[in-house]
């Protein structure tokens, strides 16, 4: 398969701590890649590196064969990489529609200013948020906030979508709804990297899983194999239980 996103030998140090150590991975169009590992294993740092929020100390990030390692985050958004944040991050004083409109106007397929509001409404409609278009962040429920953040990302028309625990903190039925959203995004040809602790979702959605521990990639493969891998179990549960 042709990889949309190729990450090679990515390394990031924070002082003496190596948060991400020589990690390589790739994702293809229509694929959902699961990224798992215990807290502090470097998953979010890896996403930050791919999204461009921080610069790597070594390694490269290629999008469709083009090296984007040196590009700032807002340029990567226009090259079709977007992400959601582990803790929902949205402007507090702007209505939902304005934020999505900004995504439509400044994303990979910028629309004309007067058409932007209709396109933004379209994106909100796909996520069942049309009735919330004029709300502000504090007037939304948690699941709605998560959906608005996804709408913000989708408005920029990404090909690579990084979801940082996007399903966490939701009720079981909300997780089901969220899973079907992720599944339909992949079905539309998006390459999704899913950082997630909810293993039911990982098993159901991901064709492939990468496990990390202490900044290092320790396993890669089908969900069942990786979740059954002795080193992965040891990383999660400690030495004695393995």
């Amino acid at each position, binding site marked *: 398969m042709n990889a949309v996103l190729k990450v090679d030998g990515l390394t990031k140090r924070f002082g003496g701590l190596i948060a991400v150590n020589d990690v390589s991975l790739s994702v293809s169009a229509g694929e959902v890649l699961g990224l798992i590992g215990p807290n502090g294993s470097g998953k979010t740092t890896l996403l930050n590196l791919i999204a461009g929020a921080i610069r790597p100390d070594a390694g490269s990030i290629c999008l469709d064969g083009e090296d984007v390692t040196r590009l700032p985050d*807002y*340029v990567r*958004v226009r090259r079709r990489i977007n992400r959601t*944040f582990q803790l929902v991050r949205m402007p507090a004083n702007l209505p939902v529609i304005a*934020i999505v409109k*900004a995504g439509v*106007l*400044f994303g990979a397929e910028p629309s004309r200013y007067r058409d932007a509001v209709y396109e933004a409404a379209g994106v909100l409609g796909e996520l069942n948020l049309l009735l919330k278009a004029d709300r502000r962040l504090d007037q939304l429920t948690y699941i709605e906030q998560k959906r608005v953040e996804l709408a913000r*990302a989708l408005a920029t028309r990404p090909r690579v979508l990084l979801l940082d625990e996007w399903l966490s903190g939701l009720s079981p039925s909300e997780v089901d709804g969220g899973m079907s959203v992720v599944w339909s995004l992949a079905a539309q040809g998006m390459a999704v990297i899913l950082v997630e602790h909810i293993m039911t979702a990982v098993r159901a959605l991901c064709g492939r899983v990468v496990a990390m521990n202490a900044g290092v990639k320790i396993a890669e493969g089908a969900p069942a194999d990786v979740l059954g891998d002795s080193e992965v179990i040891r990383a999660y549960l400690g030495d004695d239980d393995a």
Partner: protein
Amino acid sequence: MPASIIVATLAALTAMLAATPWLVSDYGLGFMINLMCYLALTVAWALFSGTTRYVSLATSAFFGLGAYTVAMLIHAMPIFATFAVAAALGALAALLVGLVTLRISGMFFVIFSFGLSEMIRQLLVWWEINKTHTLGRYVFVPFSNTMIYEHLLGLTVLVFLVGWLVGRSRFGLALLVIGDDEVVARQVGINVPLTKVVMFIISSIFMTLVGAVMAPRFGYLTPNFAFNPLISFQVVIMALLGGMHRLWGPVLGVIPMIVLSELLQVRFPFWYSVLLGLVFMVIVYFLPRGVTGLLESGWARLGQPIMLPRGFTGPLVDAWAWLSRPVSLPRGIAGLIEDAWKRLAR
């Protein structure tokens, strides 16, 4: 209201203001010049600071730059040429300052912009004393008060027009998102540094031009007078009082402050600074997330479980976080009117 009525009203108002010099006394004209000067400065300030929430105290730097450029060049070239040079210098200075400072956020930017103003002032004093051996410059040109007023009015109309256009453009939306959350702004693909620098330059050019037009009004200029930091503070207070989340907000702050300052300067010339301080305190008191927010979070902290001490690092980390958080701005009189309007419309 239909747009045509609003446009007609604004056009009539502008025409009336343009006719003012022939309707009022010399004193009245002086008052109107002062009013227009601060109106243009405050709206220009709010164009950048109101949207991005980078509170700038560099107004006096650009005002002074404009005034002093005219003072230094007036005997070498026609006055409109000096205006053009002033505008170009203002844009250049804003570009340099913008590239350097707009990476700093919160309180750091406020302090830096203030320091910048003071630095230019001191450098100019040093230059004038040691290199040109003067400490003041005369600006005697046939540029009447009526001309000054009409030019200021033109600038004010122009700055409102620019603000209106920006508010209806993708550029304006980008500024709003940046003001609310820079991380999200980057994540929707907005070129954050460029957007901020461009708006800072536009705003600064207006400030520089106001200073340039005002130079003939003063007649005699010293660096300490042209770069008076009081200008920066007054502009911030006027904008905060009026409220700046709406383009017309600053008007409601400038008019009462200028009227009050005129009244006080006639009768109690030394009380103006006291009044300024009082107004500032009142604004801060009503600042929705300012003092009240601090008290509330302090109260909430009292109810929290005891945390282990964090040593000397703790306060440093807290101070750093406090200094780099976005500055929250009160909504002023415009906010009150808007709330009342909403309540009526319901």
